[in-house]
């Protein structure tokens, strides 16, 4: 084979430089690691971590009540206000209460259906049920909140259903918030628990019963410990997602406020970003506390 020197050398040098880089990297795993991590870590740190730290710092600044400009002087006024004023304490307790209630309701509702799907339903009906649970998960968040606005309304279907029994719809308020939030996050709770239950091998359950354990004991001593990470992963969704919500509150909550509403009104109408930042630190602190506790259980790998 005859070679055309000019053309060949060009392509060969191109090829060999790629080769060179490749073999250089091949023997240097640390450089390879650095190259892989460079873009994503830069992105997450530069955009997200910096933004979070900045938010923390902004909470210590203040706003001039006349000009609306932010003063970059350190003060604890915002934090003091958030920690001492009754409004913030009430709303914090209400928000945490709602988030806990929603999480408990979702777990109670999710456990039986997830168990049925994972351990009782036949392959075909299991597949259908997974699809039936997935569908509302993909359906828009707003659609679901809006659907409950229709259901709970005084002219709505709930009123029509319970009126013959002398009852009435709870309407828009705290009960509406809890029902709607529990409804919206339910698929997010069912699916991790279902996956967790599927991983609990049937042979373990049989072994437990062969060794004389009754169903209750098997559930308590075999299923529960194996399922705990999945339950915690599920609760992260419902708890965190409820904690920061203000949209559902506006749609079905009537005049009630959650922490998200206070943050929102301080960013918008009140134009007090430092105070909003101080309020936003409450859910951040709560979530960090929660994540630190559950990190040890290995639940984060289940997300």
């Amino acid at each position, binding site marked *: 084979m005859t070679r055309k020197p000019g053309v060949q050398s060009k392509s060969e040098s191109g090829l060999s430089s790629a080769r060179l880089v490749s073999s250089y990297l091949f023997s240097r795993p640390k450089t390879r690691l650095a190259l892989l991590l460079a873009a994503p870590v830069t992105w*997450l740190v530069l955009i997200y971590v910096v933004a979070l730290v900045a938010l923390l710092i902004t909470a210590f600044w203040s706003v001039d009540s006349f000009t609306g400009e932010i003063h970059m002087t350190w003060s604890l006024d915002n934090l003091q206000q958030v920690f001492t004023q009754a409004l913030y304490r009430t709303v914090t307790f209400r928000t945490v209460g709602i988030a806990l209630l929603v999480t408990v309701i979702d777990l109670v509702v999710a456990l039986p259906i997830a168990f049925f799907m994972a351990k009782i339903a036949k392959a075909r009906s299991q597949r259908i049920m997974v699809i039936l*649970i997935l569908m509302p998960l993909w359906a828009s968040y707003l659609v679901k909140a809006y*659907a409950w*606005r229709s259901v709970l309304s005084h002219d709505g279907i709930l009123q029509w259903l319970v009126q013959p029994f002398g009852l009435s719809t709870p309407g828009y308020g705290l009960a509406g918030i809890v029902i709607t939030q529990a409804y919206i996050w339910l698929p997010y709770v069912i699916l991790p628990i279902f996956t967790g239950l599927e991983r609990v091998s049937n042979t373990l359950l049989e072994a437990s019963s062969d060794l004389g354990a009754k169903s209750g004991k098997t559930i308590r001593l075999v299923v529960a410990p194996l399922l705990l990470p999945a339950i915690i992963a599920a609760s992260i969704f419902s708890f965190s997602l409820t904690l*920061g919500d203000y949209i559902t509150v506006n749609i079905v909550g009537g005049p009630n406020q959650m922490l998200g509403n206070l943050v929102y009104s301080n960013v918008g109408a009140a134009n007090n970003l430092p105070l909003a930042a101080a309020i936003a630190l409450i859910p951040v602190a709560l979530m960090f506390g929660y994540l630190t506790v559950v990190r040890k259980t290995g639940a984060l790998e289940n997300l």
Partner: protein
Amino acid sequence: MRISTSAKWVLGFISGLVLLFIYLPLFVVLINSFNANKNMVWPPPALTTEWWGKAFKSLGLWEAVATSVEVAIASTLLALVLGTLVAMALSRYKFFGRQVVSLLVILPIALPGIVTGIALNNAFRTILGLQLTMATVIIAHATFCVVTVYNNVMARLSRMNPNLQDASADLGAGLWTTFRLVTFPQLRSALFAGGLLAFGLSFDEIIVTTFTAGNGVVTLPIWIYDNMFRPGQAPVVNVVAVVLVLASMIPIYFAQRVSAVQDS
């Protein structure tokens, strides 16, 4: 553990009730999209297709759909690149700070949306002095979408046979060739699943969007939220809701097909 027949029936019954609870509100929205009464009185006094016609003629609605699709595609592409890179790094290397990086990926989705929203709003406007535009929405969405791609790719990589990559190197393939011909083909369905989730997450997001979108940027969720409380527009929102529920079957169909291919 032997589950008694009666326990099976009880659990089956409860599961049926749960599914009813899940689908009843969606059914109400479907019927209300044909409800002739503007205030959506139940039961509907008469049926009409007026709202459907109005929805299809609404220019603002179609523009909002286009904006949402644009944002979702752009942020999904960014998330695919970033999520794959970080998953490859974390699955193949043990290094100091590995746990921190994995927490960093999860954080934007684990923290409440309002925190992410206000933090980014503050960073873009106060610190960087930027105008809020569609680009700021895309950056924000990509940030919390990374985790879906990361999770899917991570799970796939952990099941992948590392010998294949070594074999490829032994046969003289460079790193890029190995990725292109050995690793990537095995990752394809995981990337598809992760990308699908990222798209869905972005398409549906409203809280972070509210805080990072400029004045002229109206995504579909923002359009729905703006029109929900307007008496004349509320019935049209029902139509959009029905279409969105129906459209959610598309990603599920694809996801099922991907998992069917994996099983076989």
